[in-house]
């Protein structure tokens, strides 16, 4: 539900960058959305058209890369996707620690013309 203001912000960022580059319009916006970012790519899609109306982003395509959450094993150093109700490393059984992987909610790049 909180994707609406975030989508407005995405449009604002892309629109400003495109204007600064002297572009006529934004063709594509690339987003990284981590599973632990708290944001859902589908919902950003849902809000995008109304948010983009009247800006350089109107009609642009949204390309969303979904990033899965990874923990790092404190024993063997492996990055792993956790199994439910556990933070233990599936390879060695060591304790996992949180990483930034899967927290992304970033505008990566835009294509403009």
């Amino acid at each position, binding site marked *: 539900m*909180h994707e609406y203001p975030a989508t407005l912000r995405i449009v604002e960022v892309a629109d400003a*960058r495109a204007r600064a580059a002297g572009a*006529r319009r934004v063709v594509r916006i690339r987003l990284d959305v981590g599973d632990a*970012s708290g944001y859902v790519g589908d919902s950003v899609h849902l809000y995008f058209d109304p948010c983009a109306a009247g800006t350089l982003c109107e009609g642009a395509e949204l390309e969303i890369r979904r990033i899965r959450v990874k923990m790092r094993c404190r024993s063997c150093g492996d990055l792993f996707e956790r199994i*439910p109700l556990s933070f233990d490393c599936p390879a060695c059984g060591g*304790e*996992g620690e*949180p990483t930034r992987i899967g927290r992304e909610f970033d505008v990566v*790049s835009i294509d403009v013309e």
Partner: protein
Amino acid sequence: MADIRRISVQEAVHGENDRIAEGVRANLTPRRIFMVNVMGAPGAGKTSTIVSTVRHFQENRPYVVEGDIESDLDARTMRALGIETIQINTGGACHLDAPLVAAAVEELSLDAKGILFIENIGNLVCPAEFTIGEHAILLVSTVTEGSDKPYKYPLAFEKASAVVLNKCDLLPYVDFDEAFFLKGLRALNPAAPVFKVSSRTGEGFAELAAWLESRARA
């Protein structure tokens, strides 16, 4: 056909929120106001925790910002105790963000050294994703919610500066697996102290208040 060019952006969508949060912190720190972001599920006892803690303050005036989807019930509870309180109603939004908190903080007098509690919306997901300018995060969890909560809401437990385990007077009546709870918490957050409390009996709040005051002094 026009040329298409790629422009690298690499900008976090939360960047603006984080900048405003940094401004809130920079405003409060020199005024000797220590901001505590209080998070927890609905019914965990966030309001009760604040009420039970401020009774033990020795050297700080309490201030409160109440975040609720609607109603000013919690703010009235605080004001009845003589605590300067501002109510934020988000009208459905699931968390407080830095611009909302920045505006509320402007309305408080903050004229004496103190601890400012921001009671976030009852929710273990979204509040953990937004920094609001806090100096510490207090996560209120309960023995009645169950011991699996660190595994189900890892971000909230990872970000906590301290965990308040409330309703401990009910431990004899519920199947709370404390070892499993602590194993999950420690994987995410090796350092955060855990305060076992009961808002009903008042147990544990003197220790929590002393910890907050020592953090505010540092």
